[in-house]
């Protein structure tokens, strides 16, 4: 590799940054390529071993499972590219649903008021994560582990205190419920197959995240702070603002997921969501995000979520003993990651 400042020996030879790479090479260099190959492999595998996997209705179910995960995986992938984790993301979803439901119920307000209050509070929690992280300089692992535990306690504590039981009161008969349900939890029928609206949310979020990453200045900042925060700061990247922004993104997605939970079932269980934060990270990693930050893609997270959805439902369609479920999931994860690493190595070797 020649330094950018070195004068070319031959004036006709172009600067290497301007060299046109072939589309194939460009494709091989994409972070999500390995996961796409993995997704195709998983799809083929279940198409062969599970008879009901290829039905259109099953596809709707798989996509739904993937979308619920994918909505969270996209901002979590961005956060990981920015070099941070959020262990509170899983419980934050439940918090968001609880706040929305309890506010509407206790105030006897239109449910949209609760939905908006929930958005504000959820974003505030995300901002709190980012603020404490950037202020203290402690690892995000510790900070968000703290918020994770605090939120778990607050969820149960407040719910028991306010509604007297571990779940919220039903808000299905309140004003605005139907319109909110249409937005967050409706079912669309397409050619006789039912698709949940979360699939649209998922697609939109992945689209926006990809656009931010690849087409905006903020996207460059994310890669910069995840690659080397000090160097990024030295060249003028607003590290603090970028990281807080990333946590706000996770909080926003948690709000969408939370509202989906609430308006699907109209009652929220306060103890749920624990453990999901790892699933989001898994989806992002399968999709090609590096744990160390600075590398990854939003589309990859979507592919990761899709692999996860296919595997978790495919095992059921294949009628395998569920006792082994976690084993298969772990093996799939490991294989996908290995495949990913292998493809990337090959891609780097050829370019």
């Amino acid at each position: 590799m020649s330094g950018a400042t070195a004068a070319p020996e031959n004036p006709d030879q172009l600067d290497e940054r301007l060299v046109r790479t072939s589309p194939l090479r460009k494709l091989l260099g994409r972070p999500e390529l390995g996961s796409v190959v993995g997704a195709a492999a998983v799809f083929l595998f279940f198409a062969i071993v599970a008879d009901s996997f290829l039905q259109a209705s099953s596809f709707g179910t798989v996509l739904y499972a993937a979308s619920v995960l994918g909505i969270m995986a996209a901002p979590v992938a961005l956060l990981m590219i920015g070099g941070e984790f959020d262990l509170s993301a899983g419980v934050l979803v439940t918090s968001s649903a609880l706040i929305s439901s309890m506010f509407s119920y206790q105030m006897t307000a239109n449910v949209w008021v609760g939905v908006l209050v929930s958005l504000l509070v959820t974003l505030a929690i995300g901002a709190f994560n980012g603020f404490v992280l950037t202020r203290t300089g402690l690892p995000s692992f510790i900070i968000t582990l703290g918020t994770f535990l605090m939120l778990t306690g607050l969820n149960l504590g407040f719910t028991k205190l306010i509604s007297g039981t571990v779940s919220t009161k039903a808000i299905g008969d309140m004003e605005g419920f139907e319109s909110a349900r249409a937005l967050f939890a409706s079912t669309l029928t397409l050619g006789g197959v039912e698709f949940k609206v979360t699939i649209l949310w998922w697609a939109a979020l992945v689209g926006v995240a990809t656009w931010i990453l690849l087409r905006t200045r903020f996207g460059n900042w994310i890669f910069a702070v995840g690659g080397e925060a000090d160097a990024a700061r030295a060249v003028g990247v607003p590290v603090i603002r970028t990281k807080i922004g990333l946590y706000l993104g996770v909080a926003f997605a948690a709000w969408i997921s939370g509202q989906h939970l609430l308006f699907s079932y109209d009652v929220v269980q306060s103890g749920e969501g624990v453990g999901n934060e790892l699933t989001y990270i898994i989806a992002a990693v399968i999709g090609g995000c590096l744990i160390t930050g600075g590398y990854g893609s939003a589309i990859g997270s979507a592919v990761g979520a899709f692999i996860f959805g296919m595997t978790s439902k495919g095992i059921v369609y294949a009628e395998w003993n569920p006792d082994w479920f976690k084993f298969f999931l772990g093996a799939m994860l490991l294989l996908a990651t290995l495949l990913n690493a292998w493809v990337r190595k090959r891609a780097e070797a050829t370019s």
Partner: protein
Amino acid sequence: MGAVLAVVLGASLAGCSSTGGKRAEERAAEAAEGRAAVNTPRWTFAMVTHSGDGDTFWDIVQKGAEQAALKDNINFLYSHNDEANQQAQLVQTAIDKKVDGLIVSLAKPDAMKAVIAKAVKAGIPVVTVNSGSAESEEFGALTHIGQDESVAGEAVGDELNSRDRKKALCVLHEQGNVGHEQRCAGAKKTFDGTMQNLYVDGTNMPDVTASIEAKLQSDKSIDAVVTLGAPFADAAVQAKQTAGSKAEIDTFDLNAKVATGLQTDKLGFAVDQQPYLQGYEAVDLLWLHRYNRNVLGGGLPVLTGPQIITKDDADALADYTKRGTR
């Protein structure tokens, strides 16, 4: 790898035991096996529960269901998830598979309502088990097999009264399980003394022990601990010993450890709801419905409990708990 394998094989060959162990278990299991007793087509029934991973109670339910499936020539599928949203998705996969019958537990009824309506609409007969006696009929299920959790709780309260207990602790190991809340509420209702609830993380046994221990240490006047699942009774016994408490440990549900505990006076009493029966009857009733359009219960839940088990009954049940069917 090879060396490890050789050592393991060598060790298992060298030391044979003539009592207990796997061989005794196999001998006991032989009695329960069998062939299909009917020549109806091979229908597929799916059971979707709210069980966590590796739960003893649901293992017994599964055993009962499998036994009935064997007899009734049923292809039996089991899946479970303790998150409401995930459980609903599993029911959806069963509908996608176009199963011939569906067995669902309704611990989180609101989350299951829509998807069960879908199953009913698709013409799949549904039987609910364990939790959800109040919602079962409304959701369109054929029948409900389980115990009325409030009634079971009330039975515990009465039993505690007859044992002269004054201050009891109710240990809930599944947050959000409505049935568990009903049990503790029922016990509180009939119990003359005071009763407190304690929430623990049921998937983390050391945490359960530590939580109960801390509670017993901080409040020495507690003279009874009621756990809501058999494995947690053992955790409570350990906690009691470390805390140096004199409290009596009582529990819902039964397993081999609880049976031995009752025999050796480590436990006061157990409230059994016969999980084996819940699995067995659910499959059998679905078969009867497919075969003969029979429905049991007449619109009311079919109760499998509560049955109070004390030291006197424990001896007779020990063999069955050991093979994992009680």
